[in-house]
């Protein structure tokens, strides 16, 4: 499957890399964009004796699209899940906008709720709620978390569903939708809280290449609107063409991070070279 993805990636029109970097250039000239939106300090996570995250420092600027790549078990997904505290980190700090959480102290409920409101997350396995219509899936959190009325939540949901091209599926149940459609609905659901940043945990890994493509198209459009995104992915074409920054992880550490063209075409670290070679040889 990976081979097919690569082939697909190289055949893709290369429009957005330049667009994205141009847009990003404008954004970084903006004063407020100088302050990172997300800042991780010495973030660590252990399972027993096994160290999954080994003091990760990371800054992500507003509007930046960061792709995280690396071998399995390198801690990419755990890093993502620590950012919104789906897995509470064991040490370090997570700062998103005005919220700052210290992993050493237990997080309060209101802090966690604010954190999760400002972070949208998309999972590898979609995790839509199968017992609700597509519309309810997108509306539920707006009603329960943002306190919107059913009507205004549904209105907003329909906008979001149109944006991912699935307004006609609103009254269906997720089980009737293809994997690609489900993942697009999941993106709409995550966007429904108007998050400051969107996290994607291997959003196309459970999809065949064709369906993955429609999800990547939605993600690319989202990136072009200036959404801050952190994407754990095995889609090298996305890392190279859509993201602004690429970061390689291995063994719970950041091996290399930089502008995507530099890292993907001219990696400095031996570990990065080895990983990219392995990917391209497939």
């Amino acid at each position, binding site marked *: 499957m990976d081979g097919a993805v690569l082939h697909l990636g190289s055949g893709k029109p290369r429009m957005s890399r330049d667009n994205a970097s141009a847009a990003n250039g404008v954004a970084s000239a903006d004063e407020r964009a100088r302050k990172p939106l997300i800042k991780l300090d010495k973030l660590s996570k252990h399972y027993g004796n096994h160290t999954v995250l080994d003091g990760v420092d990371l800054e992500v600027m507003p509007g930046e699209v960061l792709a995280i790549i690396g071998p399995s078990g390198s801690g990419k997904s755990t890093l993502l899940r620590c950012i*919104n505290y*789906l897995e509470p980190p064991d040490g370090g700090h997570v700062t998103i906008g005005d919220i700052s959480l210290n992993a050493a102290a237990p997080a309060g*409920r209101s802090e966690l*709720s604010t954190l*999760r*409101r400002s*972070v*949208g*997350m998309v*999972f590898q*396995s979609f*995790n*839509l*709620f*199968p*017992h609700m219509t597509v519309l309810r899936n997108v509306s*539920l*959190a707006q009603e*329960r*978390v943002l306190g919107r009325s059913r009507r205004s939540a549904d209105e907003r949901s329909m906008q979001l569903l149109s944006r991912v091209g699935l307004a006609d599926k609103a009254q269906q*149940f*997720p*089980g*009737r939708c293809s994997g690609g459609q489900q993942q697009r609905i*999941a993106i709409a*659901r*995550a966007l*429904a*809280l108007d998050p400051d940043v969107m996290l994607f945990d291997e959003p196309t890994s459970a999809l065949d290449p064709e369906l993955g493509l429609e999800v990547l198209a939605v993600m690319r459009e989202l990136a072009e609107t200036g959404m801050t995104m952190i994407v754990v992915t095995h889609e090298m074409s996305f890392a190279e063409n859509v993201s602004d920054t690429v970061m390689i992880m291995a063994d719970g550490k950041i091996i290399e991070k930089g502008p995507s063209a530099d890292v993907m075409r001219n990696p400095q670290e031996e570990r990065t070279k080895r990983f990219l070679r392995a990917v391209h040889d497939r």
Partner: protein
Amino acid sequence: MLPSLEELSAWLPDLLSGLSISLQVTALSLLIGIPFGLLLALGVLAKSRLTKILALFLVEVGRGAPALVLLQFIYFGLPTTGLTLGSFTAAVIALAWNTGAYTSEIIRASLQSIPHGQREAAVAIGLNRLDALRYVLLPQGLRVALPALLAFSILIFQGTSLCFTIALPELVSRAYEIGSNTFRYFPALLAAGVLYASISIPAALVVSHVEKRAGSYAQR
């Protein structure tokens, strides 16, 4: 051996009023017992140690002790502590406890059978724990649990026959009464048995129908 038609028509009013009591005890035991089972399931899954231990105690006693023993304990045992209950109340409490204990395990297993990603997605979109339970986990979990809960309801209906030991005038008691008045024990009990079956067998058919449909979200 078989009751004659005259006997049947003479017994039927008594037997039917016994059946009505059996059904009332069943309904109340389930109405109280299943929500109690839900609470016990949540208690067993709770993070708080005290809640967990208390819930486990109630579940293990309720499951560990035969329903007959629970009945006897509540009806004959509790009065020694100063609490005297009517046989109807005692029957409902004992069977509701029994129901709660068993259904808590059914509900707990169903909740745990829901893919972990569902809870994660609920948390990630900012739902608090109660909302995650109410909107995401319970609707799915109860759907999984439904066939087993219905099957258990049939068992509880049959279990009400134990209440004849605490002088509740339910179906078996009535059949016994008829037997001791007429010495026609076997025909009277046979008639009672047919009445039990006339409820249990259609109910079992409903359960198997529900079982086939459960879990098919997309077909609604």
